[in-house]
């Protein structure tokens, strides 16, 4: 801990430490998804034909729309942080609200995307799934697991951003104290970062 006296009446806080802590957590997330990407790459390398055919089942348009939605939501979070630094609370709240809206749209799209698969009897553990060839089964299992885990992260991100929005609203987050908003933003960018790789891997590469 710093021994130099800080002449502040408020409680001790160390924004750099919070941020380093957040980054360390983000690194564990990167390695978690990184490990899954390696699993995907190895199986793809061993089952090139099956993966090629299976990937055609996914809608590029749907994936592209969701990619753009996530990119926009990342920009709105970044703007919200700039806004709070500029003491523009209204702008910050508006941007956070927009981010939450985009996150919701992303999940709704995902719902329809997964829903269409489920309707065709394609879901983990279904009869159809167990009848698939080894390569197809690997592709779809990884697809459901990785996009599912990503969707869980979206939901966690939404909770963090909602808490931040609430705290901006009641003044707990302000222009000199916004590390919670910053950390929630970092988490949200991580969610975007993961999708940046998920999209080409599952939807595009052939």
């Amino acid at each position: 801990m710093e021994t130099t006296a800080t002449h502040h009446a408020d409680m001790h806080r160390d924004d750099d430490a919070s941020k380093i802590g957040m980054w360390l957590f983000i690194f564990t997330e990167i390695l978690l998804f990184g490990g899954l990407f390696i699993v995907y790459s190895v199986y793809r390398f061993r089952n090139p034909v099956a993966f090629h055919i299976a990937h055609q089942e996914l809608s590029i348009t749907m994936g592209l729309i969701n990619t753009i939605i996530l990119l926009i939501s990342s920009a709105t979070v970044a703007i919200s942080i700039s806004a709070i630094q500029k003491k523009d609370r209204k702008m910050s709240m508006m941007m956070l609200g927009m981010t939450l809206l985009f996150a919701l749209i992303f999940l709704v799209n995902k719902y329809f995307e997964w829903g269409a698969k489920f309707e065709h009897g394609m879901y983990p553990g279904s009869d159809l799934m167990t009848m698939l060839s080894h390569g197809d089964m690997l592709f779809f299992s990884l697809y459901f697991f990785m996009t599912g885990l990503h969707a869980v992260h979206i939901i966690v991100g939404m909770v963090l951003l909602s808490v931040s929005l609430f705290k901006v609203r009641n003044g707990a987050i302000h222009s000199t104290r916004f590390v919670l908003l910053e950390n929630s933003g970092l988490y949200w960018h991580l969610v975007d970062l993961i999708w940046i790789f998920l999209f080409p891997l599952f939807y595009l590469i052939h």
Partner: protein
Amino acid sequence: MSKDNHHHIVEYKNHILVLFLLIALTVITVAITSVELGPYNTAAAMVIASIKAAIVLMYFMHLRFDQKIYRFMATIVILIFFAVIIVTFFDYLYR
């Protein structure tokens, strides 16, 4: 220790510019992978995805403006990840 005066404020319009750049790169990826380039498809998609990831890390996640320690840590983690990829594929390619 200085509290908040080291914070760099990024202008709104810069965020918007970065956003347009990212969307443009996404569209380029879709365009490139829709033509038949054989093995280069994967390479092109992954290179562009890495560029996009770097842009998100540097600008949206403020690595470019924050203290060096964050950039340093992130670089090490990425290098570790690449090392694992290389070791894994040495195994699978040459077994």
